[in-house]
């Protein structure tokens, strides 16, 4: 890992001048043979990889209206050039969304457009060769698929779609990323990204039940594999042990407990995250989604609820029914699937939870909208519910809440810097630099409003901030889960 300097926090965010190649050295570890083969990809770079890559590109474009329209439509207006957190944090022009797309588009033009075939120099088309794949491997692993560029593009071009396609092509020729592919393999065989087998999971949950009882004097259950429960809770496996994730899990359990809801976790589908999306692999994403369906059928539940996770909620909300549906065996009086924040919000609306927000009086909170929730999904039954509902849950749990500047929240939110399959130690320089815009926004509310804590709603955001906050002079425990706040505020004793 190369040495690097943490960017300085500026009082007013600036658009940096370009520094060509400043992040060309950033590359995650390549997946070894066994990891690749486990999820259906060649173990190493195949012989005729150029042809296979070009054919795969054609197949993907033929199979995706988004790709086809996006590759044709960009006019290079420049609207997106200052929108990516990785560009703002690294100054590398290939991290401008349009330039990142062009790494892909230049090859597409060469092989699939008339202009690129006959006048490559004119339209910036280039042959598929080793240098292309090297650039792809570097820069398509500097995109967290957060979709911020797509908000600002006049044609809605979503670089995430192009990053996913590039990663799938690379996997197809045997060049995969270790972090993602190892995790997908674990989730497909063991059931979660951490590789926690059922006994370890049962142990962990039992320990958590004891902790809650010790702290509150109330017995709150953390059921696992309970057949006939009403609700299957699917949550990112980081919730089982990482801080502050686990405090969120305790919060969900307390909400279910007070509302008297019958729920269970599944050891078979003990993972909400779906890294198949990050590598653009429909098939791998589907394998993971089907585990949730199978678990729901096996346990005979009526509802599926997802815990706090960003891209997992995007996959759940937008893709799950397509990938693994139809879910007509569930009780369709409830949304399929439902987010834990929606559940808590509904209960709060019905005054079914007894909350004492003063329990969080030691904190002044702000909220980090997770990119995939903000721009890739929704909560509630109205447009923009994904912004309102988490904030309402926070406000019901604490007395001091302020938002960060308007151009850094809601649909304009910045990625934490670790999304899209980049939450790995071999990319720590990228993660630190990519967090710059978020850290500057945080710094502003810390100075102006005395904010002490950043509430997050995604396992990746939470892990990323725990790691990155100290680089910018904050403390790692300044990031909290929303349901950790709920957990602190909810009054369990004496409800009978």
């Amino acid at each position, binding site marked *: 890992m190369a040495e690097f300097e943490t960017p300085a926090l500026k009082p007013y965010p600036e658009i940096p001048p370009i520094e060509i190649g400043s992040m060309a050295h950033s590359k995650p570890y390549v997946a070894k043979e066994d990891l690749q083969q486990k999820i259906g990809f060649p173990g190493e770079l195949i012989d005729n990889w150029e042809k296979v890559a070009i054919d795969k590109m054609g197949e993907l474009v033929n*199979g*995706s*209206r988004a790709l086809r329209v996006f590759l044709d439509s960009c006019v290079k207006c420049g*609207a997106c050039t200052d929108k990516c957190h990785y560009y703002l944090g690294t100054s590398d022009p290939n991290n401008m969304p349009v330039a990142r797309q062009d790494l892909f588009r230049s090859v597409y033009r060469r092989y699939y457009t008339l*202009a690129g075939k006959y006048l490559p*120099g004119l*339209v910036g088309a280039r042959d598929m060769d080793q240098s292309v794949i090297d650039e792809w491997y570097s820069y398509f692993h500097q995109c967290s698929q957060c979709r911020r560029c797509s908000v600002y593009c006049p044609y809605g071009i979503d670089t995430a779609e192009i990053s996913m396609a590039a990663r799938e092509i690379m996997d197809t020729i045997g060049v995969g990323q270790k972090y993602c592919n190892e995790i997908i393999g674990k989730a497909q065989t063991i059931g979660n990204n951490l590789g926690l087998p059922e006994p370890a999971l049962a142990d962990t949950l039992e320990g958590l039940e004891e902790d809650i009882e010790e702290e509150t004097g109330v017995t709150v259950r953390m059921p696992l594999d309970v057949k006939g429960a009403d609700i299957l809770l699917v949550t990112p496996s980081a919730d089982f042990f990482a801080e502050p994730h686990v405090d969120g899990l305790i919060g969900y359990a307390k909400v279910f407990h007070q509302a008297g809801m019958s729920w269970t976790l599944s050891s078979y589908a003990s993972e909400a995250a779906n890294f198949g999306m990050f590598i653009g692999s429909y098939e791998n994403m589907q394998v993971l989604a089907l585990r949730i369906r199978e678990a729901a059928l096996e346990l005979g539940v009526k509802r599926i609820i997802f815990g706090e996770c960003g891209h997992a909620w995007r996959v759940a909300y937008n893709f799950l029914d397509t990938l693994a549906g139809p879910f007509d065996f569930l009780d369709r009086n409830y949304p399929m699937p439902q987010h834990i924040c929606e559940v808590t919000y509904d209960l709060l609306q019905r005054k079914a939870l007894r909350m004492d927000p003063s329990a969080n009086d030691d904190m002044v909170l702000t909220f980090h909208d997770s990119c995939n929730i903000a721009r890739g999904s*929704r909560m509630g039954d109205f447009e923009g519910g994904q912004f309102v509902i988490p904030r309402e849950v926070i406000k019901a749990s604490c007395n001091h809440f302020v938002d960060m500047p308007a151009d850094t929240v809601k649909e304009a939110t910045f990625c934490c810097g670790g999304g899209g399959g980049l939450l790995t130690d071999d990319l720590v320089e990228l993660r630190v630099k990519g967090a710059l815009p978020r850290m500057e926004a945080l710094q502003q509310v810390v100075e102006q409003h005395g904010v002490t804590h950043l509430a997050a709603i995604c396992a990746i955001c939470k892990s990323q901030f725990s790691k990155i906050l100290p680089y910018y002079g904050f403390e790692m425990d300044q990031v909290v889960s929303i349901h950790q706040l709920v957990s602190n505020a909810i009054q369990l004793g004496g409800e009978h």
Partner: protein
Amino acid sequence: MSLLTIAFTLLFYFAAATIVAGLVYRIRLYAVTPTPLRIPTTPAPITTQGVVRRMFFEVTLFNSLFKSNKWIWLFGWVFHAALLFVLLRHLRYFTDPVWSWVALIQPIGSYAAFAMVAGLAGLWARRFLVDRVRYISSLSDHLMLALLVAIGLTGLGMKYVAHTDIVAVKAFFLGLMYFDWQPMPSDLLLCLHLLLVALLMIIFPFSKLLHAPGVFFSPTRNQIDNPREKRHVPTRKSAPVKQAG
């Protein structure tokens, strides 16, 4: 018939056929290409009506671009709005008698040409002055602007500097439309103007100008955010892979 008339007659039939056939082919391709998953950029409308509204403001006011960058929006919107009036004004050369509303907007169209060139100049200046935009500009991006500016300037030249025989021009185009071919006036500015317009028509379906039909097919903008109400049925069948040429 003079050689010039024959050349321009053939050129415009070829250009018209190319832009029509090219766009029909491309739009059909957009329409038949599957959408495996639902991917609207949220917050997105939750009804069809809402999507129609979103798309309407996107293509008339460039909403997303306005959110993004006020300078690009200003230059881009002024150029496109002016182009619209300029094109509508030109309908007078293709209709006989001239529709009354086309007659009415003639003055707007005439001045809009200045706004069009000014907008283009602004966009072009950014390609030199803003380091990020300079980095992403390829030769074709500059040439496209050059082409549009040249069309605008030759048009303005005929309107305000060296008048051409517009009665003869109109006769030429009506002749094209009704297959009753008329002589093409031999005026240098006019020939240049029409040559460039024909070139623009020919490259339209092969270039980034495809953003015009493309925006209507952009799944992040035209999909409804209602996955819990309506299951998005996967359409995964692909047409056979075909390379260019």
